[in-house]
């Protein structure tokens, strides 16, 4: 039996339910177990587990579930692309959002990651402290900054309202997810020219060792036809 993790509530849950129904495999919550388990219409061999959105990627990584619907941002934050144990099987296209590097608009002299690296070095020289990046995407940030050759910074963990950190003075810049950019603009932040960390949408991800499972292959094909 293969276990598929699905967000237990919210917009992602609703869009996922709609997509699965269109593909002919509507999700039904079981009346027992307080609705935390479910089944797919007309597809034996896959059991549904309703989980909080933040748990799905980590449960995929640990192998507690074999398949999961989650945002690519959370997936890649939890599991490095080079890890190899989990793959994206289908991109749903809904919930599109970008994870970006954004700096204060008043930094008239900063437009690229190279500018940022230069400023980070000057910042350290004049303040004796590393420039701070507020984010909930610790791993995505580290990977992206390393890739761009930016080293002299510190991450400040941010659970919510990350975009307010520069104005509040708790960080100098942020790495955050944005859909329209309105929130960034309202906080007088701008995205760097080459500051796109990840284009994220909702995805169906699966552990590499289950993608050859006939039920999984059937589900992926059925979903892909509707996309």
């Amino acid at each position: 039996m293969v276990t598929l993790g699905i967000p237990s509530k919210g917009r992602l849950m609703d869009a996922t339910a709609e997509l699965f129904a269109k593909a002919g495999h509507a999700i039904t919550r079981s009346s027992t177990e307080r609705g935390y388990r479910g089944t797919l219409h007309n597809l034996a061999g896959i059991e549904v587990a309703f989980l909080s959105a933040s748990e799905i990627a980590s449960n995929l990584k640990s192998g507690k579930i074999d398949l999961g619907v989650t945002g690519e941002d959370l997936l890649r934050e939890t599991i490095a692309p080079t890890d190899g144990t989990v793959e994206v099987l289908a991109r749903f296209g809904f919930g599109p959002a970008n994870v970006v590097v954004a700096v204060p608009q008043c930094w008239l002299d900063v437009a690229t990651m190279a500018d940022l690296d230069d400023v980070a070095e000057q910042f350290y020289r004049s303040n004796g402290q590393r420039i701070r990046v507020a984010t909930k995407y610790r791993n995505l940030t580290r990977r992206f900054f390393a890739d761009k050759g930016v080293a002299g910074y510190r991450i400040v963990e941010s659970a919510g309202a990350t975009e307010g950190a520069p104005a509040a003075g708790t960080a100098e810049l942020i790495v955050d997810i944005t859909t329209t950019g309105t929130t960034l603009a309202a906080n007088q932040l701008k995205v760097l020219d080459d500051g796109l960390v990840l284009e994220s949408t909702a995805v169906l991800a699966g552990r590499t060792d289950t993608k050859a499972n006939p039920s999984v292959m059937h589900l992926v094909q059925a979903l892909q036809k509707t996309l």
Partner: protein
Amino acid sequence: MAGRSSSEREALARQNAAIMAVFERAGFDHIAPDIIQPADIFLERSGEDIRARTFVFNDPDGNELCLRPDLTVPACRYHLSHAKNPASEARYCYLGHAFRFPGERLSPQEFTQAGLEWFGGSDPIAEEARILKLATSALDVAGLTQYAVKIGDLGLFGSLLDDMSMPERWRRRLRHQFWRPQAFHDLLTTFSNPNTKRRTGISAHVDLLDNHAPLAAAEAALRQNNLTLVGNRTLDDIAARLAEKFADRSEAPLSADMVATIDHYLSIKGKLSETAAQLRALSATPNFTTAVDVFEARIAALEDQGLNPRRFHFDANFGRDLEYYTGFVFQIEANAGNHMVSLAGGGRYDDLLSDLGAPMRVPAVGCAIHAERVKAVLAW
């Protein structure tokens, strides 16, 4: 394996005791720096990359602490808290655990470092040779006979740049990016080829400096767009950097000769004793010549210590990934099956003690041996 058996523990302890006896006999004071360290010192010094490999946690008051990822910084802190005068000469040795999230092969989460630190010395070249000699002596008593020694010298690159005519900020940028070969190469291309300058989101602000003073232009831009100054940089900082960008537009690019000299320097590698002549032939400018003199004097000092520089390997690129070193660097490697592993490394880091709070620059040279790796290689 969840721990060592009594015989494994005894074998490692015996090896390490033999290593420490070499260090103590040489007159190094055997200290025990703290295992738990303030995280800031490591993080501010190295940035986020070391933090990704460091065990960081909070105390009940919310202060960030860490398990030491190496023993050099803890030894420096020991020195700063014990020495009346931080610049006074002190020689320390230590044996203790360091903790890092695993990355490389044969790199467990906790491992033992046996090391040396020599602070405040007055004869840098002789001290560097002595440290390398003690590191090889320690491996000898551990029973290791086959190993390779890699040598680098970051002073050579610094002086090569110092002798080239270019804006000071370009030199600073090149020196800063030296640690990241790809970014360094990109920067060199930009500075040597004015046609590759592309427009970015800041170009429009730089354009304005044609007829405006930088600070006035920056102030006007903020006012026009109703922008508040946030992000802990002053408007002076921002304006000054715009002015630099403006000045860059009219700077003469680096000549093809300079670029060729830098590229040629970075390609020099070979037997230590033979590379001195290549360095001598590369450039005869004053600072670089002095640096080559030091390089040659060091080779002689290594011979004085009974070491054989013909067996050592020099690589101009070596040391590029070790950010806090300032001059001489070395690494001792051995074969573990089908790949080489680093058993010991060290070098000069004259900026570290002042970074950590010493009121003056204190010369420092040291090394650390990865004890478990030595044991593992001996078992092959």
